[in-house]
C-alpha cells in the first residue's frame, strides 16, 4: 500500500515539474502554431535569474522566484520581438528550426556567463512521511506552487477578458482581429505568460536538483512528450499529459513484473525512463493521428 502511495507522490512531484513548463509550449503552439524548442530555455534563464537574485542580491527565494518569473516573461517578449515576430509568415517547420537556433544561442550565452558547472540553491529540506511514503517539504512547495500557478493560469485564460481573447486568438486568428482583438499585443501577453510559467518551472526544477546551462536537454523530451500526449495546442491537456507521463514512468520502473509473472524479481531498468517518455510521445502520435490532424487543420 505504501508503495502505491509513494508512486502516486513521485508521479505528482515529477509531473508538476514538467507540467508547468509544458503548458507554455502548448499555449504558444495554440496561437502561433509551431512547437517552440526554445521554450525550455526560458526555464533555464528563469532559474539562473532566480539563482542570481537569491545568491548575489540576497533576495529571499520566494521573492527571487517571482521576480525572475516576471523578468523572464519580459525576456520572452524580447525574444519574440527580435526573432519570432519577424518570422510570423514562414512555415511551422521553419519556425521550429529557428527556435532551435534561438535555443542553442541562449544556452551558449548562459553557459558563457555562468560557466558550464552546476550550481545549487542553498536550501535543505526535511523528510515528511505519510502512510509510509516519503516526501520533503520542498516537494510540497513544488506541487503547491505548480497547482497555484495552474489555477492562476486557468483563471487568467477562462475568467478574464484578456485570457478569453487569447483563447479566441488561438481558435481563429482572423476572426479575433476583426473583433478588435489586437493580435500583436495579445501575442506579447502570450509570450509573457510562457516566459513566466517556464521560469517558475525552471526555478522549481533547479530548487529540486541543480542549475546547469544544459538542463534544457534534460527537460526537453519529457516536456514535449507531455505536450504531445495532451494534444499540442491544449494548455491544460499538456499539464494532464505531464502527470500521465510521470505516472507511466514511475509505474513502469517501480512495478516488479518478475514477481507478477514468474516469481523471479525483475523490473524495467530505471535507465529506460527517457525511453518511456519518448516512446509514449511517438506512440501517441501514431495511435491518435486523426484527431491531431483534424484539429491542426481546423
Amino acid at each position, binding site marked *: 500500500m505504501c508503495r502505491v502511495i509513494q508512486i502516486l507522490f513521485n508521479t505528482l512531484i515529477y509531473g508538476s515539474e514538467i507540467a508547468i513548463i509544458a503548458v507554455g509550449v502548448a499555449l504558444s503552439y495554440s496561437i502561433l502554431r509551431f512547437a517552440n524548442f526554445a521554450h525550455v530555455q526560458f526555464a533555464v534563464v528563469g532559474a539562473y535569474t532566480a539563482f542570481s537574485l537569491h545568491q*548575489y542580491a540576497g533576495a529571499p527565494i520566494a521573492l527571487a522566484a517571482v521576480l525572475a518569473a516576471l523578468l523572464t516573461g519580459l525576456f520572452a517578449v524580447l525574444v519574440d520581438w527580435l526573432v519570432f515576430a519577424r518570422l510570423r509568415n514562414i512555415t511551422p517547420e521553419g519556425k521550429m528550426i529557428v527556435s532551435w537556433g534561438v535555443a542553442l544561442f541562449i544556452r551558449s550565452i548562459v553557459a558563457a556567463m*555562468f560557466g558550464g558547472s552546476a550550481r*545549487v540553491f542553498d536550501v535543505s529540506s526535511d523528510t515528511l512521511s505519510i502512510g509510509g511514503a*516519503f516526501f520533503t517539504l520542498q516537494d510540497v512547495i513544488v506541487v503547491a506552487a505548480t497547482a497555484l500557478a495552474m489555477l492562476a493560469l486557468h483563471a487568467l485564460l477562462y475568467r478574464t477578458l484578456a485570457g478569453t481573447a487569447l483563447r479566441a486568438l488561438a481558435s481563429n486568428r482572423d476572426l479575433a482581429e476583426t473583433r478588435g482583438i489586437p493580435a500583436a499585443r495579445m501575442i506579447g501577453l502570450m509570450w509573457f505568460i510562457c516566459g513566466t510559467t517556464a521560469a517558475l518551472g525552471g526555478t522549481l526544477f533547479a530548487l529540486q*536538483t541543480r542549475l546547469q546551462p544544459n*538542463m534544457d536537454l534534460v527537460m526537453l523530451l519529457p516536456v514535449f512528450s507531455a505536450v504531445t500526449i495532451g494534444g499540442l495546442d491544449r494548455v491544460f491537456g499538456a499539464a494532464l499529459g505531464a502527470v500521465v507521463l510521470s505516472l507511466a514512468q514511475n509505474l513502469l520502473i*517501480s512495478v516488479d513484473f518478475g514477481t507478477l509473472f514468474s516469481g523471479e524479481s525483475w523490473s524495467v*531498468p*530505471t535507465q529506460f*525512463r527517457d525511453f518511456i517518455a519518448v516512446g509514449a510521445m511517438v506512440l501517441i502520435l501514431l495511435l491518435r493521428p486523426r484527431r491531431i490532424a483534424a484539429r491542426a487543420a481546423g
Partner: protein
Amino acid sequence: MKLGFSVLAAVCAMVAFSALSPGAVRADEPPVSVGVIANLTGSDPKSSVDMVHGVEMAADALNAAGGVKGRKIALIVEDSEYRPQAGIEAATKLFDVNKVDAAIVFGGSSVSIPIAELAAPKGKILMNTSASSAKLGNYGGTLFSTLPLDDIVGQQVGFYAASKGAKTAAFIVPNNTFGTGLMESAAKAFEEKGGKVLRKIAYTEGQPDYRADLQALVALKPDAIISAGYGDDTRTAFKAARELGIDAPWYVGYPSIFSVENDAWMNGKLSGVDNGGLDSPMGQKLKAAAVAKYSAEPRPHFYYGYDAMMLLGLAMQKAGTGVAAIKAALPDVAKSYDGATGKIEWDARGQRINPPMDKFMFKDGKLQAIAN
C-alpha cells in the same frame, strides 16, 4: 555583478599570462606546445575544467622553473563538446596544425577512444586523465593514464564493503562507462567475498530526481549501497535516498568527486576508496595553490591533470622533444616523480599498477582519510 567581475578577472589573467609567455621566449626559441582536449561545453564540464586548471598549474610551475630546456611550455586547449566528432576535430588540429607531440585528454570513453584511435597511428602521445574504460588498454605505448582504471578502484570498493560486514548490497551508478564499469568490477569483488547483489541501478545522468530509481531499495533493505558518480548526480541520489528513508551506509569509488547533500545525514555514512596521495604533503600544497589561484577547492581531476602535465614536462626535460624520446622517457621520469596522486607506475598497456588507494570517510562536514 560578482560574476561579471570574475569573468573579467579571468580574461585579464589570461591576457596577462599570454602577454608574459612570448616575452620570456623572445630571446631564443619558440615555446613547446602541449595540447589539452577537454569538454569545456556539453554535459557537466566541471571536472573537465578542473583538469585543465591542473594542467595550467603544472605548466606554470614548469615554466617558472625555466621551462623545457630553456623553452617555455605553451598550452593549446581545445573543446570536445563531449561529442566524438568535435573531439576528433580538436585532436586532428592539435596533432596536425599545431604539431604537438602530446595531448592531455579529458573525456568519457566515447570521446577518448576515437581520439586514441587517431593518435596511435600518428605515433602521438596521449595522457588520459579521466576515461577508465578497459578498452583504453589497447593503446599501450601511446596512451598513458594518470587515472587508475575502474577495475582497480571498483575491486577495492567491493572488498571494502564486504570487509565492513555487508552481506547484501545495492548498486547505484550513472549509466555511463565509468559508472557501469566500476559497478561490474565492484560487484564481482563483492560476490567473491560472499556478498549478495540485490539490485543494480544505472541512472540516466542529469535527472531532476532519482526517487523513482531508488524506490525499490526501500523494500530490499540492503546492508550497503555501493556507488560511484560525478558530483551533482550523486548529490541528487543522496537526496533521494535520504528522502526515502534508506539508511544503509554508502561505499563508493572516488568519494572525493561526490557532492554531499546533507552534511548531518551523511556524517559517517559515506566512505570509500579513492586515489592515494591527495592527502600527501604534495597534494595539500597543490590544493592550497589551487584555492589561491581559482578560489575553489579542486576536485581530483585537477591532480590527474597536474600529474599528466608534470610527467610530460619532466620527460621532455630529460629526453628533449620528439615523440619517441618522450615516450621512452615517460616511465623513467615517473619512477622518481612524487605525484600529486601518489607514485605512478605503468604497465605495458599504459595503465597504472599498484596505485596507492586510500580510504576516506565523510565526517564533520568533510572527507577525512581513515586507516585501512
